[in-house]
């Protein structure tokens, strides 16, 4: 409930403020968003499993985002940034799919 509210509030804020993404952050933002989405879906799944923990969610959220951005950064420094970011997106996508499948089983029993 409060999570959905926060998401909507953040979206409205983004629409309202309309800031420009600084150039240095541009490669990392999409990866960070995907990582955060992964954390959010994991949190929803944990909620449905009745094992949700606030603190762990916060920690995993932040660490997910930071690690994803770090991997892309290191990849950029090594010259394999695009490949590595593709890999990160693939891995996070697989995890999101798994979490969504678990949520689906919870909600629809199917």
């Amino acid at each position, binding site marked *: 409930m409060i999570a959905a509210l926060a998401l909507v509030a*953040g979206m409205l*804020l983004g629409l309202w403020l309309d800031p420009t993404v600084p150039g240095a952050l*541009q490669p990392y933002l999409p990866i960070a968003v995907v990582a955060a989405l992964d954390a959010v879906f994991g949190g*929803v799944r944990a909620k449905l*499993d009745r094992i949700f923990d*606030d603190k762990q969610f916060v920690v995993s959220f932040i660490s997910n985002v930071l690690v994803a951005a770090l991997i892309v950064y290191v990849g950029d420094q090594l010259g394999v940034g695009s490949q590595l970011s593709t890999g990160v997106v693939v891995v996070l996508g697989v995890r999101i799919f798994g979490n969504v499948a678990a949520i689906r089983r919870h909600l629809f029993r199917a």
Partner: protein
Amino acid sequence: MSGDEHTETGTGWPKQPGPQPPTGPAGEPDPRPDAPDPDELSPLAPEVEVDPEPPPATAGESRLDRAAGRPFASALALVGGWRRTSPATVMIFVLLALLGFTLVEQLRTTSTDPITSAARQEDLVRILYDLNSQEKRLRQDIAALEDSQRQLLSGEQGQQAALEEAARRADELGILAGTLPARGPGLVVRFEPGGAGAISAMRVLDAVQELRGSGAEAMQISGADGVTVRIIASTYFLDGENGSLFVGGRLLTGPYTITVIGDPATMRTALNIPGGVVATVDGDGGTVIVEDREVAEVSALHAPIELEYARPIT
């Protein structure tokens, strides 16, 4: 990343020792100012109203800090209808708001300029390289097309020049063959027979040859009765009766007038050389009058010859 790891992310395992907050030695108050109540951290714990009645174990100092953070927390609780307002909840709120913010921002950035803004440096370099090679290809195309255009243009010009040359030659040949009227500087030569001696065909032919030799380009001869004949290569001269003259099949009577186009001075000199045409005719008793003309007109035409046997060699 292994497959079983993803179950950990974002999921709270309450029994896990790692994220559990250390509560410190027994009896000692938690050193963190806004340390959550251990009971609140467990989602499985029964939802008890904590704020109005803090547990007696917490010290007064900690209670003050909690009271300071209460207005914001209670506001959150009002908005969401959420009873448990721990700092972690606030953190979740902030993080999710941030996620929504960046999500919208990223979507907007990607939708405004999908190619360049989202691409990283090596992609941009690749795009630039592609565009450069494409530009090079197009430039080569342009060069080739310009080359062919030039060739076609020069071909057209060549054709036009050949056409003009052919027309010029046709005009020249037409003048030489007598099928075209001509006009230019020249002479008018009158042959007037004297009392005794008539103007013979030999004399006229001599005069014509002399004029040809001195550069005459077009000639015609007219008799007294206005009959005019164009003199060309195949024109013949025959003596007729009573001093008349057959020229190319037509009968002319004297006096005769030859109109010739060419260099007047040269032709006059050629006619007047000692022992030449003028002298001979004078010796026979006739008279030759040579007049310069600024514009002499040779307007008589010769019917074109239909070639029956001769074919040009190309």
